[in-house]
């Protein structure tokens, strides 16, 4: 099992979700984060004081999947999130040791989906 963390542009979420649904990945956890990366932000100005906008709004997805789904999930995210411009984001894949469904107490591969 793998724990996939993806950081994407906020406005790509709907497309990414469509692509994930297409490969039968329905379960995920979403949150709002700030990204510090290659992409340049817009400098803000408050009463003449400028703030370099180096933290940009991004969306983080966390998706636990069985091995068979790892590559399809990565591909789906990539399809949905890629625009070709700097700032499209990254996908990180971590090993997942165990997974438990709280409702039933099931563990392992069956609990993931």
């Amino acid at each position, binding site marked *: 099992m793998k724990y996939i963390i993806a950081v994407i542009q906020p*406005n790509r*979420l*709907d497309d990414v979700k469509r692509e994930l649904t297409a490969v039968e990945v329905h379960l995920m956890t979403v949150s709002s984060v*700030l990204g510090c990366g290659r992409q340049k932000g*817009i*400098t*803000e*100005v*408050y009463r003449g004081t400028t703030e370099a*906008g180096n*933290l940009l*709004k991004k969306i983080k997805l966390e998706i636990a999947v069985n091995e068979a789904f790892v590559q399809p999930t990565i591909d789906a995210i990539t399809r949905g999130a890629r625009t070709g411009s700097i700032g499209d984001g990254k996908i990180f894949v971590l090993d997942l040791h165990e997974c438990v469904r709280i409702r039933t107490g099931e563990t392992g591969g069956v609990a993931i989906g």
Partner: protein
Amino acid sequence: MIDTGDTAFMLMSAGLVLFMTPGLAFFYGGMVRRKNILSTLMQCFIVMCVVGLQWVLYGYSLAFGPDAGGGVIGTLAWAGLRGVGMEPNPEYAATIPHQAFMIFQAMFAIITPALIVGAFAERIKFSAFLLFTILWSTLVYDPVAHWVWGAGGWMKDLGALDYAGGVVVHITAGMSALVVALLIGRRVGYNRTSFSPHNLPFTVLGGCLLWFGWFGFNAGSALSAGGLAAIAFVNTNIAAAAAGLTWALLDWRMNGAPTLLGAVTGAVAGLVAVTPACGFVGPLSAILIGISVSMICYVVVTRLKPRFGVDDSLDAFGVHAVGGIWGTFATGIFASTAVNPSGADGLLFGGLRLFGVQIFVAAVCITYSMAVTFALYKAIDALVGMRVDREEEILGLDLTQHKEMAYTLLD
């Protein structure tokens, strides 16, 4: 002679009408996405500044100044408020300082272009917006105000009734909104992503400020603190209440829940529709106007708009134009000389002529506003471009047009 009661009433009413523009700003601002609230607030705020100046420099003179002939426009005789001082101008209001009348009218000139903001929210370029607003005020608002309310205005002489601005304010702004919405096109993501209101409490706050300020708008249009002001005040409250409740009930029936956004939207529609009628009709007519306007606007906003795929983002057309047109017709139906002898009788009271005049006047103003707005749009678009780039739109107007963010993200 100056009457202190009337003057107190008119100055306070002017304050209330000014207060409506921030109300509108929050009403709109709560409905846009987080990344565009400042741009929406800014557009409304800068109108307070720009039209506030335009009005004293020449707008008031164009609209209310001595007629240039034919009732089409005022001369520049009162530009820079020359001759507009402490003494009353009996042609408009015999018991208050001329400047009090002028500033009361200024607040109407300010809020009108701000209404249009709802149509092109979240995608207009600020420089283009600024140009558009100044030109639109000069070429649409000022002339139409002259026709309907100016001494010698041709629609006024024709007998058109528009107590507080159904035609002058809501029809002109709402129809122009439709034109701009059509020309500027839909927001990026239309029908693909969610455009849910990012802060509904702000929208409610704005709606309530509008309701509150509308007392100044409508009752103040009596220009004196007497019986007519009371009638207009009462009708205003009644129509808002009836329309707000109606929309909530429609929502309940159609979507299974009475929404707060619906109730507030309905109340605003009710306020719009009663605006031209409030000094001419009785309380039961006000109830009917309120109920009917919500039904009509509900259909336009929730049924026709999606069908035609028009992205009138915050329903400047669907509420203000539709409500304003219906209110103008309703005045031709429900007006009664028993309520206001200086008005006329509507359809219900046997007056066919008034009804005809109202339709005619509405039609002319619709056509005029749309035509001029179309021309202005094309000209400004050619000059500076009306719409921001796709990337800027995605990043949001707050950052790209104003270099600001509404809320800190980490702090």
